[in-house]
């Protein structure tokens, strides 16, 4: 590990790292529900699994929407966030949430009642998927839209979002669909989803490690963020929850554990816990680089 000259300086008038504080727990929770809900809808809609799709829609509308409204300084003006779709990922995300909510609900309704003609039905489903996919990746784009925070400023961030969203969707589908006729009759579907979960975990581990790798060598601030996550104050949370529980335990259970509702819940719970910890820690460990330093001119 490279040694870094700088320290965390809070709001002191000193050259050093500062933590970002604008995006806190309510934002992390909103992001969590965003990718969990959208991922769930995405996976569920391949099986026309209505319960899953409804749960996904609710998670996005209430969990993400509600979390965002709680986070905003002026929630009553929230409608203004539609105006900058041309440049802002937040804007684009809001559009996606709105479209997803409308078209996703419509699709579920259509599925249940067969209301729409064929072509319209396809269109509604497609638009819902597109909006859903957007939600699954845009949060990563929003975080990496600026070079400001080395931990976030990576092309891997949207991929991490996508990977987690798919993984969340898979485990949540396995849980919610356990007792549904859908899976009860098709054990090979369950098997497929379990393998998908393991594959996504593998992909996710590599993505996360790559993300940290890039941050560490990206800037001093990134180096400090990674140090905090792997060796510093957040070490226990990150290694135990994000890696151990979120990836390790869930993958092992998906691969080797016997069939059982409790098993599914435990595995999903582990994965989602790890994912929530990831969201929170990405915000907590994010640092700004020092604006300017003369340390390189002087030797200790």
């Amino acid at each position, binding site marked *: 590990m490279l040694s870094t000259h700088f320290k*965390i300086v*809070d*709001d*002191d*008038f*000193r050259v050093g790292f500062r*933590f970002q504080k604008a995006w806190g727990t309510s934002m992390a929770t909103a992001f969590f529900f965003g990718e969990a809900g959208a991922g769930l809808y995405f996976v569920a809609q391949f099986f026309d699994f209505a319960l899953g799709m409804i749960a996904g829609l609710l998670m996005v509308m209430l969990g993400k929407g509600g979390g965002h409204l709680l986070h905003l300084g002026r929630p009553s003006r929230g409608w203004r966030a539609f105006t900058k779709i041309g440049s802002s990922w937040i804007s684009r995300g809001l559009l996606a949430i709105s479209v997803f909510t409308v078209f996703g609900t419509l699709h579920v309704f259509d599925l249940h009642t067969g209301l729409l003609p064929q072509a319209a039905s396809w269109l509604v489903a497609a638009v819902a998927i597109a909006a859903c996919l957007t939600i699954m990746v845009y949060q990563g784009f929003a975080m990496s839209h600026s070079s400001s925070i080395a931990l976030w400023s990576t092309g891997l961030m949207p991929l991490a979002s996508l990977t987690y969203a798919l993984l969340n969707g898979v485990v949540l589908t396995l849980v919610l669909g356990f007792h549904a006729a859908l899976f009860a009759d098709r054990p090979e579907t369950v098997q497929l989803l379990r393998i998908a979960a393991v594959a996504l975990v593998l992909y996710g581990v590599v993505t996360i490690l790559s993300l940290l790798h890039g941050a560490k060598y990206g800037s001093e601030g990134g180096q400090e963020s990674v140090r*905090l996550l792997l060796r*510093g*104050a957040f070490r226990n949370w990150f290694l135990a929850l994000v890696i151990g529980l979120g990836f390790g335990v869930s993958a092992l259970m998906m691969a080797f554990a016997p069939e059982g509702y409790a098993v599914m819940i435990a595995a999903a719970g582990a994965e989602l816990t790890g994912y929530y910890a990831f969201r929170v820690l990405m915000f907590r460990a994010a640092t700004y680089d020092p604006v300017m330093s003369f340390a390189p001119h002087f030797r*200790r």
Partner: protein
Amino acid sequence: MAHEQPVQNSLKPGRWVNSSCKMCLHSCNTRVHITEDGIVNKIEGNPTSPSNNGRLCPKGNAAIMRHYDPTRFRTPLRRTNPDKGPGVDPRWEPISWNEAFDIVARELGRIRKEDPRRLLTSISNFQKGFLMAWPAAFGTANYFSSVGNFCGGGYHPMNGFIHSAFAAANDVNYCDYWINNGGGDGFSSHLHTAAQANHVANARVERNMRVVVVEPRLSIGAAKANEWVPIRPATDRQFALGLCHVLVYEKLYDAKFLKKDTNASYLVGPDGYFVRNAEGKIHVWDARDNRARLWDDPDLKELALEGTYRVDGIECRPAFQRFKDILADCTPQQTERVTTVPAATVQRIAREFAKAARIGSFIEIEGCLLPLRPAAYNYYRGAQGHKFSAMANHSFKLVNFLVGAIDAPGGHVGVTLDDWKEDIRGGTGEIRPGENGMMQAAPHQLHPEVPFSYPPNETHLAGYFPLGVDPGHLSQYTLARPEAFGLDYRPEALLMCHANPLWNLPGSRQRLYDIMRSLRFVVAVDILPNESNEWADIILPCHDLLESWNMIMIEPPHHEGPCLRQPATPPLYDTRSEEEIFYEISERLGILEAWNGILNGWNGFHLEPELMLEPGRRYTDREIAERKGLLWNGKDLEWYIEHGHAVTPRRPEKWYRPWEGMRLHFYLEDIVRVRDELMRNMEAADVAIRHEWEWYDYQPLPTPALDPVHEEPPEFDLYAVTFKDIQINFGETLSNPWIDDIVFKDPVHTAVLLNSATGRGKGLADGDVIRIESPYGSVVGRVALSQGVHPEAVCISNALTRIATQHTGMRHGGGSFNDLLPANLRHTDACSGQPETVAKVRLTKLASLPAEVVAGNSAYRPRRVH
């Protein structure tokens, strides 16, 4: 974005008023913006002022938050809680002015009738300096404060001796090699910081002026300097003498200057006095004719600076030779042992200094040919605040003397306190010829000499310090064993104005609290609660800097001319001006005439009879301010209201060699004379303490003797020093939220600073809690390890030294630094009254900060840990 009004305060509808600042001693010119609703919402520097050029330091920028501080005293108050103590709630009860004055007049009147000496005073309003002379009208010289002597004990008398001035500075106009020793001039503190910082920055950047800073801590000045010379605390005098050694022994000195413009060639006998003939005229040695002559002999061919001679059978040497003899023990190697500054550094700096001084060169300034000596050694509290203070100040002056840089362009120059008139260097800065061709020395810069008395009239023994600045700290020493001093009375009352003696006095807080509790009556004239006025029985609230009138010049190094202070708003509360308060009290006590007489003298009104205050009348602050303006340049108050000030660059004839034709005091025979006179007086009066009096302190030339602080027991292995920076110097600003905002985010003000290697050697790490203990007291604090601290120093910012008061917005620290200091004769300069300001300490690691230290609004607030 539709706003009817601007959002930026200086642009909102309203008016600007020209005024001057009072967030510290000095009076930078300001302009104050008041909205149409009468709210002060911006204060800026006044761009028409050549002094601060529209600029202001952070304190001046924070004045609005003093004005609107909710804890300001709003009416006269009476204490209802009989208990008194640090942090104890006085339970103030509002009373009328009449009732307040009744009580004050009754208490003080009784004292005045019985024995006026029983009144202690602590009046520190420098901008209305005439108030400091009020006790003379009352009949007491008792001064219960360290203001003036903690930082300037030896400083002011020595400036008076050498320059006939109050303060001193380096001439930034021409200086090329600027040494700062224990003083922050031009960077962080002392004279008109906002102005000086501007001038010094320009000199450094535009003229490449080289700056060398000598001090134990990497201060702001040291950070900007070309070279920081770390030095062991309380050894600055020896550093200066080391420089003098090199200058003298390597013959780098300005011999012509010493011969022509100083008394360095005057012959001194073995008793320390000049060798005089029967008429009192002083002898010198003619080196060409090899015989003694009188100093003004027209046949004198060549003055000798060195050698040993006999005159009328008496062995004698020129004063310069006496100094050279002393310097034999001040080699660079010896200097290194005492100061830890490497010998090679001492040599190099002396040689650089001499070379930069360009001895022999001249400059023409406004048609006048003057010696050019662009090398100057400046210094202030950190360097001179030690037991042998007079000697220390003298040694710093001598570095300048030796290269001819006294009052020369580019050199070390005198700075007056308050010139009264344009056409003379007035006030106490006036230059007068003395005896034997020398300039009249003027060591009494603060007030006239306090006469000798036994039993002593003053609890702080001012009558035994004929040259000194009031040693207010000695009161706790004498009152602890009054019989030994022959004290025939005890203090009964204290009057404070714009003062905080319980913060500024060195020595034991407990002893001070004992004194406070022993007083029957305490009255304070002030605007905000502090550690001291919360002991008062009566508070008389006065106007603040935005509600009052004043006219003051006060020590601007490079400019002259008074600055007007005028009200920006009517008084926010039921307050009165200090003038009105003291006039009311004076009239009730029957000393109105005496008070007006003193006011006339202090303010110089006696120089213009039509301005004189009539004995039986009372005057407002506005009327007195108007007179001062008229006295300066004949302009009336309307003119000053419009312009705000009459500040101009100081004329060269006022500060370059204003003593031309007279000889400066290289050798201070006056000190020897004063010592012997005091000895005679004490002998005649059979003063018991004359046997413990520090007679060695009276030296006509400085010696390298160690200050007694170095002789404390060896287990106290480090030196504790205190410091301030520009946000908190020369005033009380820690209660101001805008100052709090910037001070307690600055790493040098949030922990006790310790050298990294020293700290690690003691097993300490950043954030550890320590007890800092001297032979006299202790404080606690949290440590920060730093590479910018001398290995033997422990640096405690003034920001960490407050005690919790009724002003809960002010953060308290881990105890008063001054508790670490002694308050006794051994550690006081008998010559100047200066107390020792450095303490030898030892450190002990504690598990945590004591509960009372972290309670409430603590400077050691818990830090978030990641």
